[in-house]
């Protein structure tokens, strides 16, 4: 177990290093941020001074090592646009994304998994076919379009919900979050549903497929032959088996949603990190881009680690081994 964790941490470190090089080089290649930042009327002297100030006159490798050196000291750099430390910037936006994503994955799993299990338990029934049709819509209709439809319907036509923004914040444990206020919930629910549809479709299809497969296995037949009622067979025997792929996908989706809820955040004008990264790319705000992407890598590595640990708990055949 300790060996496994150690090995995982070393892998994570290697991934982070590789990723930072790729990101840094990529960002270096897409252009000079000074051209965007500076007043077009500024003269060459001011331009040169600024370039020197950000270290952009240095060769790539030197810039990279300067960046790494700063990161090691805990300094991820300062946003060129907002002129605040990147860490503060990201952490000021992170709670908004976190709450949005948590609500949306809860909706996706809470509705998607039971619906998929139902559809897999009654394959061919009318309700199962309806669920499957909806799941196809869920992950084939573009998110932004559904988002706009939701806004049109519930914000513009019916006027039940606000069309965007984050709403009032309240204190929940240590966080300032809109999940603590009714107004906050009214703001979060629509983008969360929008964000959950794709994942819900995925969860439905995965759990249905697992269910259909599992119900045909011999251990289910054997359980039936012992006189176990179906609800017990599903909850005690099958659920555990099908939860293994579900956990994998759930983890991946959680990570990618946290990092790239961009479209939904843009449609609903949600002040989360997705919007931050898009803005920073548009403005060539290098420190934000680089640091953000490195943080995303760390996030993915962490989520995968947790997924592996859950795996080992779910499936006794999986043993967490260190070494090769």
């Amino acid at each position, binding site marked *: 177990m300790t060996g496994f964790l150690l090995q995982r941490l070393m892998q994570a470190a290697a991934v982070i290093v590789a990723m930072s090089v790729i990101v840094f080089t990529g960002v270096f290649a897409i252009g000079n941020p000074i051209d965007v930042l500076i007043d077009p009327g500024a003269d060459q002297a001011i331009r040169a001074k600024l370039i020197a100030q950000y270290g952009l006159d240095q060769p790539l490798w030197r810039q990279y090592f300067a960046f790494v050196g700063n990161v090691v000291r805990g300094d991820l750099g300062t946003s060129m646009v907002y002129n605040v430390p990147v860490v503060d910037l990201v952490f000021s936006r992170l709670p908004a994304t976190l709450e949005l994503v948590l609500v949306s994955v809860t909706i996706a799993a809470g509705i998607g998994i039971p619906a998929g299990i139902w559809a897999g338990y009654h394959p061919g029934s009318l309700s199962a076919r309806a669920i499957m049709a909806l799941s196809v819509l869920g992950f084939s209709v573009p998110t932004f379009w559904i988002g706009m439809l939701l806004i049109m319907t519930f914000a513009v036509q019916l006027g039940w919900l606000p069309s965007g923004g984050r709403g009032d914040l309240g204190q929940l444990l240590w966080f300032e979050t809109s999940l603590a206020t009714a107004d906050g919930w009214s703001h979060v629910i629509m983008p969360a549903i929008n964000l959950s549809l794709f994942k819900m479709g995925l969860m439905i299809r995965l759990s249905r497929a697992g269910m259909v497969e599992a119900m045909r*296995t*011999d*251990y289910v*037949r*054997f*359980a*039936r*032959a*012992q*006189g*176990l*009622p179906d609800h*017990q067979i599903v909850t*005690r*025997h099958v659920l*555990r*088996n099908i939860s293994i792929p579900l956990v994998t996908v759930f983890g991946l989706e959680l990570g990618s949603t946290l990092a790239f809820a961009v479209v939904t955040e843009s449609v609903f004008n949600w002040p989360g990190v997705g919007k931050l990264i898009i803005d920073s790319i548009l403005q060539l705000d290098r420190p934000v881009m680089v640091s953000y992407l490195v943080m995303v890598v760390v996030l993915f590595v962490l989520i995968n680690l947790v997924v592996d640990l859950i795996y080992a708990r*779910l*499936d*006794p*055949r999986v043993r967490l081994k260190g070494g090769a």
Partner: protein
Amino acid sequence: MTAALDVRGLTTRFDTRAGLVTAVNDISFSVEPGRILGLVGESGSGKSVTGFSILGLIDAPGEVAAGEIRVAGTELRGLAPAAMRRMRGSKVAMVFQDPMMTLNPVLRVGDQMAMAVRVHERMSKRAAWARARDALATVGIPAPEERLMAYPHQLSGGMRQRVAIATALLHRPGVIIADEPTTALDVSIQGQILAEIRRLADETGTAIVWITHDLAVVSSLADEICVMYAGRIVERGPAEAVIAAPRHPYTRGLLDSVPSGHAPGQPLPQIPGSTPQLANLPAGCPFRPRCPRATDLCRTTPPARGSDGREVLCHHPLEAA
């Protein structure tokens, strides 16, 4: 004495795309307590479907279309699903062919067995585990306490099959249907399990229906043999008699295909052809295309069951020796 299991006229059909398939066609047999019935046939002869029909585990598009199934005098057909479920495991149990697949890989053996205990009897988890441990000991598993804590993948195939048999025995059912439980095992393990089963039948009075394609297994184990072909029982009689003097040409063919008793190096006699498609049975006797004794009568008229101590479904049975 009431038979532990009495099956009369059982017919099971599947409504498939190829048409209505009669997988089990009007079969009858009964087993007394403590006796072992061997149900023998090739793949697709309907022997497993017979087992599942008895337990009421035929799923759509299949259905038990006709017949009576009595377990210790209780008619199972027409029971409400919940009542049928209460019979399964407690009065009639089943063991499957592949021990690698019949146990849930992610649950401890003890949890699975305790679940099977508690579904029919209200008792504490601890008591259920104790019952499971006793059942494991009954089937000759050493250190049952440790086996209960194990996951299926930590046990050998023979051990797993013993666990499955122990699970079937938990409620001391009057009938156990064993669907080729030794086919997937090593020959030495097979022998041990057969001996174990024989002992259990003798000691507990459980009636056993032993489904197999292996005549050699059944000849040493069973008291009575039913030979199935294309969904019908074509020959039925006491084991020694059927083995020593088969009367149906198919049984003869099966016995001749067993390697023992032939000179080494000589080609084994085979039954020509293969089992017919159930959806597309030949008119008359279904075995006719493969039968060395077939006549024009067999081509047109299905044979009726003639009963003179032995039941043989044939127009031209071999003479009793």
